[in-house]
């Protein structure tokens, strides 16, 4: 399987729920707030001026509290929800202007979706659920079954293929949901709070499984969550929504080190920074001379791990080096402590 080269370009996307959305899109564009639109005009502002470039072959996380518009956003990508205005370009085509038949084909060939409450078909066995997408596309039964069995094995459900969803635990049901999505062999994988209904331990397992699969498959994944830990763990890129607007976009380091406002500050307050911050994000420039016999840590190492290594060594700084061993910067225990202790200090220059 090759890396997906499908990017998703969302431009100037607006969604207003209500009887006559078109009447208000102008007002919203020139600054009417969600509260005003709701109170004075009885319409709900679902998405407000969304612009995102979702990278190919990466995991794009969309995060926000309940009601911030996450589900609305992800449902525009396969157009389960009709936009009020804007465009979404995928492989040079504007999804939001596709005629119905082309849209249906696009959904069959290019997207697959995983749902919060699994959305499996209760009257079908695991294998028949997994091959559902292929069946809809008209793939020959034997071939669909073969590919379905491969994915059932890949998500660790071999032996369960003839069971019914009601006989499986939540975690196992969501594996079925994932296998159904993967067997569709689509370049885009849409996951709307796919893990939110699972117990914390199962959830961590499922996250690891997704990361393993992604290392191999390199699909363009859009992952919705309201959980910051999950976002930081999975997201190559993270977008934070509030009231239908984007508050901040960036990778995990940007969000942790430079939170855009109080809202995000509150979000990241309780997170274990050491587990997500990387050494290269807080290191300082290499001094001209005197590196001497300092130990080195690889870039990409988390602060947690780096701190442990430094504490065990006689030195209190280390050289950050890339995969090839080329030195990139210098990291010290003092910097690590500062970065871990608070977002405010860490974001100061």
């Amino acid at each position: 399987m090759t890396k997906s080269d499908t990017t998703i370009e969302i431009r100037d996307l607006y969604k207003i729920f209500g009887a006559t959305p078109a009447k208000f899109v102008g007002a919203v564009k020139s600054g009417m707030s969600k509260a005003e639109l709701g109170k004075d005009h009885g319409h709900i502002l679902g998405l407000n001026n969304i612009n995102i470039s979702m990278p190919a072959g990466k995991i794009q996380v969309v995060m926000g509290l309940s009601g911030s518009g996450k589900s609305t956003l992800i449902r525009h990508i396969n157009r389960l929800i009709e936009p009020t205005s804007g465009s979404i370009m995928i492989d040079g085509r504007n999804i939001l202007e596709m005629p119905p038949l082309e849209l249906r084909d696009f959904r069959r060939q290019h997207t697959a979706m995983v749902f919060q409450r699994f959305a499996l078909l209760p009257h079908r066995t695991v294998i028949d659920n997994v091959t559902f997408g292929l069946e809809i596309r008209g793939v020959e039964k034997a071939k669909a079954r073969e590919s379905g069995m491969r994915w059932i094995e890949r998500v660790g459900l071999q032996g369960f293929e003839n069971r019914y969803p009601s006989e499986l635990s939540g975690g196992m049901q969501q594996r079925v949901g994932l296998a159904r999505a993967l067997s569709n062999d689509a370049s885009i994988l849409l996951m709307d709070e796919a893990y939110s209904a699972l117990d914390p331990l199962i959830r961590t397992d499922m996250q690891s499984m997704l990361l393993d699969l992604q290392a191999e498959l390199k699909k363009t994944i859009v992952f919705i969550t309201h959980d910051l830990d999950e976002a930081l763990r999975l997201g190559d890129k993270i977008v934070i929504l509030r009231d239908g607007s984007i508050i901040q976009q960036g990778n995990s380091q940007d969000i942790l080190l430079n939170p855009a406002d109080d809202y995000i500050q509150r979000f990241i307050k309780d997170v274990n920074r050491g587990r997500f911050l990387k050494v290269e994000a807080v290191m300082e420039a290499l001094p001209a001379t005197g590196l001497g016999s300092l130990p080195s840590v690889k870039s990409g190492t988390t602060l947690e791990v780096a701190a442990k290594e430094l504490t065990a060594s006689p030195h209190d700084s280390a050289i950050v080096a890339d995969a090839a061993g080329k030195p990139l910067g210098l990291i010290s225990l003092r910097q690590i402590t500062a970065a871990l202790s608070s977002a405010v200090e860490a974001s100061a220059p």
Partner: protein
Amino acid sequence: MDWLFKFPQIDPDSLLAVKRLTDGSLRALTRNYGDAIENFFYPLQQVLIFFEDVMTGAPWPLVILVLAVIAWFAAHRWSVVSAVAGTLIAIGLIGLWNDAMKTISLVFTATIFSIAIGIPLGILMNRYKRVGRVMQSVLDVMQTMPPFVYLIPVVMLLGIGRVPGFIAVVIYAIPPIIRLTDLGIRLVDKEVLEAADAYGCSRSQKLWKVQIPLAMPTIMAGINQTIMMALGMVVIASMIGVQGLGLNVLQAIANQYFTQGIFNGFAIVGIAIIFDRISQAYGDRLQKHRGATHD
């Protein structure tokens, strides 16, 4: 003050004119198109006669065997099979075998017909909201109108016999299957429907692969109700020429034969139990994997 105690009704002459006009045109319709109408229903009549001949003509052990096998396939339980066979034997023992076969064949054909028309109507009702609202009112009228009232035009147009009886039974029995098909489709989980859309289902794929299967337990409940209503109608239908257990009950009422009434009444109950057990058990088996029941 007189007007307070006498309702200001429409002028009796005008009312009479309306009645004359309606009844007159219905009669004219029968006179002019009676043959055409009869021809139209001729195939239906042949089907009804065919089923009745099959049921009454077949050797009784074969009938019991076939129904027992059907019970087994529907329920997969010996208790249901033995209840079905036992009931049939009891009906035979009290001398009502032939009449029971006539009643079973009428109820069976009326049910098949109701399903064949009712499920598509239920689907239409669900898909087109405006059709749905109109149909809702029609069904309300059908379910509250006393059957004797719609027997009148049916008899005027078709006379007395199997076909008008059959039509009366279907009119009476079809509303539950229509309503419950619509309801069943409406109750399908929204997220599952979303999944169907997300995977690119066409309308018909969504209907046949998702909506109908998920609505099936509710539809089965509708079929069960339809069967029970059809059975409930056999006595009334016997007033317009349907033979079988219903006719015996009617005679029993007219002549005050209490025992005959009781025997035939119990035979009808017995048939109801047979149909009910088979269709319930089948519905339960459909439910098995849906988390509603576990066994």
